[in-house]
């Protein structure tokens, strides 16, 4: 028996890899996680890239992480704390502002400043969207059945899915009307969807933001309404749709997971980039790493996106042709960039009244859906948006661990930024030009912003790919469009976390239910591995 033999190897120490590893370690398996970088966490990290400041330099806010996973892995015990934020705001060029709050009635009052009709419609809107959140919640935990299979397991799974939708009882299932509402919600564009509720441009623009973050869709693209749901279905402390900061940055999530993993005998090896999967007789038996080590295991679970898993570390000859072609055609498009900024003091945003909790969370300055769609049109041409949609927040306002007293850390997420920049692609100069452009955009709303900047880090989709290993820098590891969701994710026919290569599994965000710091793909994949290994499973999640 060769040395370095384990029960399971997990490739990649992102949050899904660590979730899967922790579940399997808890079930008593000997698990090793191999990570290419010398730090842990993938895109959920806190890094001190400038002395004195901690950057959540990829993902920056938390909501989607499933509460069952937090409980099962006892993440609170290992130091995770989520601080909900109280509101969000859109600043307007005329000096006005638009705010949303944690508190429903405050939000209604705030909307009423812009439109009485919208304030009323917001009641209807929040009811309908929360209903959709409730409908999708149990689906997140399910392994999508293979609809073409006649195996009892899949037939039963399909029945479960159908039952969930078709139960007669209003409380358990949906009526005819709700089924239509659901289909419409999943297929419409956010613009059309919001137009059924609201009249004022600012209301629509503020709400539509969630529907474009991270995607290569515009607010007019059918299917963007679903992306909104994807950003709404999370919860903080049981409050659905809320967002919060992880204390100490997003890295605390993965650090807590690692704590759980280590306590249950798991092991994480940084600086061990997996170069290829070792196969024998058409089965995966181990992996080889960059530094020449080989590891062997009964099961291999990949936390890489579907393209990296099958086009990079697996050899094409081990896979069916059709499958390879589907993987090649999988859409994974970078559309987002980021600026991480170290500030000497809190910048002024004169639009937002001082002390208004609306300024405590995410801030934006896109006033109309038309501007947003224009930003998308730029991206389609291979340019960064001249008038971008930004999602900026200053976590250090509520979390003193991010920067020294009085200093602040600001995270600016930018939509849209292409991976393939037209006219020659990215280089250092254009990257800096892009960074300056964003800083200019922000300083239009904050006169003292530029003077307070101590240091900033510019991240284009290219950096996301090179550093974190997200193909094309797509934050969801694959577009969240109808052709790539549920049964179709990552590839139709292989949505059950298993792959055509025996003993090889995939647990990344390329699988159902998709991206965001959610952990559900990891937990679902772990369940399937444990099922195949006949290991009894424990936890709330299952």
């Amino acid at each position: 028996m060769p040395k370095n033999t384990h029960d399971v190897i997990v490739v990649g120490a992102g949050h899904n890899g660590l979730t899967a590893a922790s579940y399997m370690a808890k079930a008593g398996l000997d698990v090793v996680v191999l990570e290419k970088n010398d730090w842990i966490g993938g895109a959920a990290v806190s890094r001190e890239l400038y002395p004195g400041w901690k950057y959540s330099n990829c993902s920056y806010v938390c909501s989607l992480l499933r509460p069952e996973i937090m409980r099962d892995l006892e993440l609170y015990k290992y130091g995770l704390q989520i601080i909900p934020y109280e509101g969000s705001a859109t600043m307007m060029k005329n000096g006005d502002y638009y705010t949303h709050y944690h508190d429903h009635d405050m939000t209604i009052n705030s909307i009423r400043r812009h439109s009485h009709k919208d304030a009323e419609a917001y009641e209807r809107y929040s009811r309908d969207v929360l209903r959709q959140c409730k409908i999708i919640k149990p689906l997140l935990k399910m392994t999508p059945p293979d609809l073409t299979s006649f195996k009892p397991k899949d037939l039963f799974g399909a029945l479960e899915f159908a039952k969930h939708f078709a139960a007669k009882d209003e409380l358990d299932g949906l009526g005819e009307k709700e089924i239509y509402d659901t289909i419409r919600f999943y297929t419409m564009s956010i613009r059309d969807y919001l137009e059924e509720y609201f009249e004022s441009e600012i209301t629509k623009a503020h709400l539509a933001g969630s529907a474009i973050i991270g995607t290569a869709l515009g607010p007019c693209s059918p299917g963007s309404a679903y992306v909104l749901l994807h950003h709404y279905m999370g919860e903080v402390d049981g409050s659905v749709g809320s967002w919060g900061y992880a204390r100490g940055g997003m890295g605390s999530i993965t650090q807590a997971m690692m704590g759980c993993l280590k306590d249950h005998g798991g092991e994480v090896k940084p600086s061990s980039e997996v170069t290829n999967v070792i196969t024998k007789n058409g089965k995966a038996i181990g992996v080889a790493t960059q530094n020449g080590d080989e590891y062997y295991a009964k099961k291999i679970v990949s936390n890489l996106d579907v393209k990296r898993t099958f086009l990079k570390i697996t050899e094409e000859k081990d896979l069916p042709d059709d499958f390879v072609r589907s993987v090649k055609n999988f859409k994974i498009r970078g559309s987002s960039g980021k600026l991480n900024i170290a500030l000497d003091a809190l910048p002024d945003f004169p639009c937002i009244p001082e002390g208004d909790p609306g300024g405590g969370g995410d801030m934006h300055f896109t006033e109309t859906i038309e501007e947003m769609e224009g930003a998308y049109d730029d991206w389609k041409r291979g340019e960064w948006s001249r008038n971008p949609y930004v999602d900026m927040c200053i976590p250090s306002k509520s979390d003193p661990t991010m920067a020294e007293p009085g200093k602040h850390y600001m995270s600016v997420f930018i939509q849209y930024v292409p991976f393939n920049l037209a006219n020659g692609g990215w280089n250092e100069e254009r990257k800096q030009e892009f960074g300056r452009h964003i800083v200019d955009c922000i300083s239009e709303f904050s006169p003292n912003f530029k003077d307070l900047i101590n240091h900033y880090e510019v991240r284009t989709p290219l950096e996301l790919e090179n550093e974190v290993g997200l193909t094309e820098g797509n934050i969801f590891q694959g577009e969240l469009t109808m052709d790539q969701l549920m049964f179709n994710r990552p590839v139709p026919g292989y949505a059950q976390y298993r792959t055509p290569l025996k003993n090889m599994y995939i647990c990344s965000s390329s699988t159902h239910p998709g991206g965001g710091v959610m952990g559900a793909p990891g937990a679902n994949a772990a369940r399937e591995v444990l099922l195949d290994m006949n290991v009894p499973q424990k936890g709330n999640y299952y």
Partner: protein
Amino acid sequence: MSDNSNFDAIIIGGGHNGLVCANILARKNKRVLICEARKECGGMVNNEITNYVPPVTTAVSSSLGGMQVNYLPKTTIALSETGQHIRLVGNQHIDHKSISTFSSQDADRFNDFHEKMSKFSKTLGSFMMASPPRIMNNSFSDYFKLFKLGLNVRLLGKKNFNEFARMIGLNIADELEDNFENTLLQGLIAHDSVIGSNLGPRSPGSLINLLYRMAIHNNSLFGGIFQIEGGNDQFTKHLIEKCKSNNVEIKTSASVKNCIVEDDCAVGVELINGEKVYAKKIISNVDPRSTYFSLLGSQNLDTDVKRKIKHHRSKGRVAKLILDLNKLPSFNNCDDIDLDSRMVVAPSIDYIEETFNPSKFDKLSLEPTLEICVKKDSDQNPKLDIQVQYAPYKTDQGWENVKENYIESIIKIISKYAPNINECIEHKKLITPDDIELEYNVSGGHWHHGEIQIDQLFMMRPIPGASQYKTHLDGLFMCGAGTHPGGGLTGISGKNAAKAVLDDF
């Protein structure tokens, strides 16, 4: 009150679906009256609006007792500025050959692509011929229908089932870029996928539009595109003749003001001139929005229905430019047969997408896509009948202020392919979507009386709860293109509606 209460059915609007519906009802011995607001029946099927028609399906023609019109197949030609046009006829071997002169890989891929799409369009077609089932009303026939539809898809086989599931929400640009390298071919197919719709080639859902189009055009990409011998209006003329022989009464210039509602049931119609006509069933061939808001009146609608209809998307994006000519212009590298073809100007996917971008917010793009058709007027003078997309329904500046400029920019595009076009033009006429709205009483001026997008298809067409040709008012039915399966000059809506009405008798 005139003594007219002995009609079995009144059909409001004599478009082709209304005519089909009327004929089917009359053949079942119903007394039918058609009220047409315009001077003649036929709606948008005429020589000015319609350039090409799909063949009438056997199901429709047999329920009418046969259609005696002659279909002339038309070739499609994608114009290229360099003169390297692509000509496609819908025959697999010929098309393979003509594409292989550009790229042998594309030619082979085209065959596979065509075969796959054709298979899926047949499956989609099987959904079209019957009224959509209702779900959850515990009726055996509805469950059976659902089961049958599911089975149809399942019978495609594992691989195709998965592919079909993926394709429903896909955008056409991705699929074309995965398959083909020639941008002109990509542009041509993308053009046909977004034609008549509010989607760009990169909008998810644009692929299903193409499948839909194929389903009514002989399940073929470029086959099944016809003109009717003697003019496309022969189609409706023939239907009108049939009406006469089936004793359908037709009132023209008889604009209906509203439905007469008694005891929550539609019992008749009131014409603009005050005349009231009564019948057992009222069938509306007008678009859903007008049906609900004008015929029914918002006082008869609950808020939920009102809201849904209000947000029913039916803004047209297609304009027509008609150029009367003194002689035919010479198109670069085109012979007489080419001039008899459907000439498409859509050089690439990006070109179409750029045209689409401004239209999303009712702005004008001066580089639209064109589908050019050479016709002859009654004096045998040639004219160019050009379908222009995407022309906004209304523009910020007002159509009357930008029309001239728009016409000139279109002619400028044509001059790239036919340099002497300017010397041939005698007279220009632009018909915008809002002109269509006014002239043909179609709200939004939309071809299909409503967008063909997933949330407005099948059980949700035109709106959930009214997808079985019945409206929310007893006795009032719909038979227009706004209902399942939608427009495209097929008459299927009219046929399905007739069945729903007959079932209700």
